[in-house]
């Protein structure tokens, strides 16, 4: 039979990789038909909420729950004393520390959970909270990590041994009672020598402020303990449902098969929903105690003040170079403020995440990094905005150091980057701090970006602007922000990446139905990334069935294969690879079935888009749809019925997406108001699965980057009060504040990934923050500015101008 449909048409009809397929999720999201945790309503469901401390550091003298118990609708008030017999008043953190579930004798940060009020509804719970009487004895508050390392005040008495000795922490010896760990990478002495002997050394200290991703949906859960069959079901805003199941089992003693964790639709995660929070534990306990389902949902202030923050890194660097601008060495020290508990979610062997990617995109032969983690009276976390991996901090650090070095050398910062990029032919490239970059072509991306924005023209315009400013013709300055970033994503190889001993592989299980449609389940969970769309596209290309005929399901631990979840841009690099590999297993079996049906040898058929054809005789073929049916209705000698596969993928290496960003900004010197005139973003995330989704991810990530660079912060006063606990003061940009983004790309596939894809979700944040910040700093460079700290909100920009005498 003659095939009427062209090969191109067959490819198009699959909507496979490379197609800007519309997001299948959007039909329900845009119609208000999503199903979020707070949409879950069960018969007899109760509501729990926390009494939180107004003090950042205090001893708890007493807690009186009597009046609260009298509030109509209040059923129980849990305190640490109630959890202690169960061993649940403390819980392990993902970083190897432990954390109070409810205040055990003291509190360590404002907003810390003190008691859990369980009531018939959230209104009664709120009224009950008001009636819990807690007597506090205030203790000295430390919000500065440098002060913490000097202070006699002990924040964590539980970590001090007999007679004031300091037992080792999870990451080795501790220097002081408020010290958590020291982590080193690279060569200390050789780096010091290079710096001592260098032609030019630029030195700078910078503070990457504490911030928060503020997902639209806050954190929450519903715990339902079925006392009849002993099964616990836990719905929650979990970015890593399987890891949560294991953690819940380990700390509660409930066998893992009796726990079902379900992540329904999640309204944004950004790392904020990776960790285990006291709300989860208390809801589970409350459900066990009451025998009823218990819901806990944070309000906005709870979310901003207590759940996983990002950053809070004080970084000091030295960068050495020859007179010509060739970088010879880099040194970095970080004082990392982790808050009251170390609740980061870094891989076990990396207490400062992948901060050792801080040599960036440059061929720096010698480098040394040292990070000191410190306790303070601030909220724990350090997970969000890819904070556990610390890549954003690393890229900010190196991209600022490059700018400062350019000032020191009196050189153009674009040229300085060009001189120092790792060259295409150097890949795979082993960096001084240990990582093996899989692939890259930085020069091509850089030249493309500079050409697209007419970099030379911009510099000429800027020079004219400076002249006009000096002549009193304008009060506006122009900044050109450059950034070139290398990401490290797809954690990660089990040999060096685990969390709580769980290897960071991921998984996919596929079932092909007899009529040629399919369901695939993954160990990841979308929080808006569009997995149901893109993973179906990967499979469509791999197994030749239309993406529209493939259901993607995630988030239910009873049905999905084990995986470590979605964060750190790991879904495509790891679960995407598992998907492709599982697809290839399907294809391998399909090949045998096809050969049998076509009555030829297995090796005589080959895959072609949506079918197997007899080699050399393409008119003889069996479509995947036909093969699927045959798998279920034919007795094929030597082949089991059915068409299913599962793959657990342990990546051989990380992937290293990269990109080149340019921001053009006008700054009103008198008011400190910046105006982003242009933003150009070139991303290379390897093979592009769905260009439209990539563009959406880039727009979203850049907007977060803009927020962080220009105003978003979790600020504390000296008493440890959070000053930015509502959206009035916590900066969330709207369409009004956001510029028009221009996106672009190059494609350098990952050589070790089955489909060459690298991950893109976090790139724009990683690369965007330094780009916006560099634009602000660059505007003031002609007037002697070297570095000012973010966030560059109006008054800080104004202060930069003021300090440079531009208002005189």
């Amino acid at each position: 039979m003659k095939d009427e449909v062209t090969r191109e048409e067959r490819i198009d009809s699959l909507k496979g990789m490379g197609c800007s397929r519309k997001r299948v999720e959007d039909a329900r999201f845009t119609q208000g038909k999503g199903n979020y945790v707070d949409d879950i309503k069960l018969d007899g469901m109760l509501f729990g909420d926390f009494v939180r401390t107004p003090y950042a550091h205090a001893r708890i003298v007493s807690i009186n729950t009597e009046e609260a118990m009298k509030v109509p609708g209040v059923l129980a008030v849990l305190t640490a004393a109630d959890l202690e017999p169960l061993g649940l008043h403390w819980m392990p953190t993902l970083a190897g520390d432990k954390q109070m579930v409810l205040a055990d004798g003291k509190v360590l940060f404002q907003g810390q959970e003190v008691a859990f009020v369980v009531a018939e509804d959230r209104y009664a719970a709120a009224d009950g909270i008001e009636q819990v009487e807690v007597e506090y004895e205030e203790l000295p508050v430390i919000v500065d990590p440098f002060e913490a390392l000097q202070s006699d005040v002990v924040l964590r008495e539980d970590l001090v041994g007999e007679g004031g000795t300091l037992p080792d922490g999870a990451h080795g010896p501790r220097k002081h009672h408020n010290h958590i760990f020291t982590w080193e990478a690279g060569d200390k002495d050789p780096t010091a020598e290079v710096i001592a002997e260098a032609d030019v050394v630029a030195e700078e200290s910078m503070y990457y402020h504490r911030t928060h991703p503020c997902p639209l949906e806050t954190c929450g859960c519903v715990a339902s303990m079925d006392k009849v069959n002993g099964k616990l079901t836990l719905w929650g805003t979990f970015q890593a449902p399987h890891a949560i199941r294991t953690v819940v089992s380990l700390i509660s003693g409930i066998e893992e098969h009796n726990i079902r964790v379900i992540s329904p639709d999640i309204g944004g995660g950004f790392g904020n929903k990776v960790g285990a929070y006291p709300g989860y534990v208390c809801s589970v306990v409350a459900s066990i105690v009451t025998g009823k389902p218990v819901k806990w949902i944070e309000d906005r202030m709870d979310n901003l003040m207590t759940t996983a923050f990002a950053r809070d890194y004080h970084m000091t660097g030295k960068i050495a170079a020859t007179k010509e601008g060739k970088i010879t060495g880099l040194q970095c020290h970080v004082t990392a403020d982790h808050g009251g508990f170390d609740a980061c979610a870094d891989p076990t062997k990396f207490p400062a995440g992948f901060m050792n990617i801080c040599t960036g995109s440059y061929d720096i032969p010698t480098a040394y990094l040292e990070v000191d983690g410190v306790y303070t009276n601030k909220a724990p976390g350090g997970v969000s905005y890819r904070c556990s991996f610390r890549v954003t901090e690393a890229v900010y650090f190196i991209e600022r150091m490059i700018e400062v070095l350019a000032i020191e050398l009196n050189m153009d910062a674009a040229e300085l980057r060009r001189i120092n990029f790792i060259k295409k032919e150097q890949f795979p490239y082993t960096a001084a701090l240990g990582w093996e970059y899989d692939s890259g072509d930085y020069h091509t991306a850089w030249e493309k970006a500079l050409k697209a924005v007419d970099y030379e023209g911009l510099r000429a315009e800027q020079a004219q602007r400076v002249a006009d400013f000096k002549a009193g013709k304008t009060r506006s300055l122009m900044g050109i922000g450059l950034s070139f970033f290398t990401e490290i994503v797809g954690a990660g190889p089990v040999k060096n990446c685990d969390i709580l001993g769980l290897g960071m592989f991921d998984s996919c299980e596929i079932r092909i139905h007899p009529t040629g449609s399919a369901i695939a389940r993954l160990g990841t969970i979308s929080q808006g990334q569009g997995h149901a769309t893109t993973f179906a596209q990967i499979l469509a290309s791999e197994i030749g069935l239309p993406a529209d005929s493939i259901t993607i399901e995630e988030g239910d631990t009873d049905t999905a294969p084990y995986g470590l979840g979605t964060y750190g841009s790991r879904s495509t690099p790891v679960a995407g690879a598992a998907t492709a590999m599982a697809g290839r297993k399907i294809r391998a079996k399909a090949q045998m079935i096809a050969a049998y049906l076509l009555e030829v040898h297995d090796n005589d058929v080959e895959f072609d888009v949506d079918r197997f054809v007899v080699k050399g005789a393409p008119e003889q073929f069996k479509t995947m749809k036909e093969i699927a049916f045959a798998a279920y209705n034919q007795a094929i000698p030597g082949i089991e019925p059915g068409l299913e596969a599962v793959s657990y993928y342990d990546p051989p290496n990380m992937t290293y997406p990269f990109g080149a960003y340019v921001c053009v900004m006008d700054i009103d010197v008198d008011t400190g108001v910046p105006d982003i005139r242009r933003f150009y973003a070139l991303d290379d995330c390897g093979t592009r699965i769905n260009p439209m989704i990539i563009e959406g991810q880039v727009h979203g990530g850049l907007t977060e980057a803009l927020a962080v660079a220009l105003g978003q912060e979790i600020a504390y006063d000296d008493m440890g009060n959070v000053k930015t606990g509502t959206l009035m003061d916590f900066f969330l940009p709207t369409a009004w504040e956001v510029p028009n983004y221009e996106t672009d790309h190059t494609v350098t596939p990952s050589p070790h990934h089955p489909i060459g894809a690298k991950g893109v979700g976090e790139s724009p944040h990683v690369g965007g923050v330094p780009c916006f910040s560099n634009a602000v700093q660059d505007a003031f460079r002609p007037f002697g500015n070297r570095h000012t700290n973010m966030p560059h909100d109006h008054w800080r920009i104004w202060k930069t101008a003021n300090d440079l005498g531009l208002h005189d």
Partner: protein
Amino acid sequence: MIPAAFAYYRPTDMAGVISLLQEHGDDARVMAGGHSLIPMMKLRMADVPHLIDLQAVGGLSGIAIGSGGIRIGAMVTQSEIIDDDALSAAAPILREAALQIADPQVRNMGTVGGNVANGDPGNDMPGLMQCLDATFSLIGPDGVRDVPARAFYEAAYMTARGDEEVLTAVTIPLPAGGYAYEKQKRKIGDYATAAAAVQIVKDGDICTAASIAMTNLSDTPIFSEAAGAALIGTSVDDAALQAATDAMQGDIDPSEDNRGPVAFKKHVAGVVLRRAIARAWSRA
């Protein structure tokens, strides 16, 4: 963010409102658009056991423009101000200012009466009304009285309005000359870092009248008579601008907050006022 329990009333006439206010005294509050009051209740910063909704009370709506002036009912929303073309022709500064308040959703609910009665120094309309020399009409158990906007504000959340009084309307003399409402804020939906309302009258090249009020730079709006006076009789040249901003600086008393320290706010107040005067002058 759940408010304490409260009783909700929805009277249909003013007598009903006033008798509830008399009955519950301090424990009662009227609610207009609710977009300042409800957030305060949810934060449990305002304790309102008796909440009296004004939505069903007659006689508080409508915009009337006459030869003597403009009357805006207390329940007129900020969106209605923006959408009313006749009002914008008669007093264009109202639209310019209203467009800089919050966002469309808030403006669809928030009212003129609520904005001026609230007493929050961050609200934009109190300064605006002082600039326009508006009069607020109040009704209470003892009848009706008028209070000039320039004499209404005593301290943050403290106004000349008695606990048992309701604001029914704002009356504005028809403004003349050029106008400008200039506001610096951190983002859409933010209160002012500094804002200036300016009405200015030009005769030939000379300024013959000028009215200036500043927002969020003290615990009340600041009507700066001296700043206006500094412009009158001048050609609004650089020296006059300097004199006006200097005079304004003497009247404001900003405090530090997340928007920035005092020095910054004073500086921005000067910049914002200069720009407002320049724009108003160009339109005069």
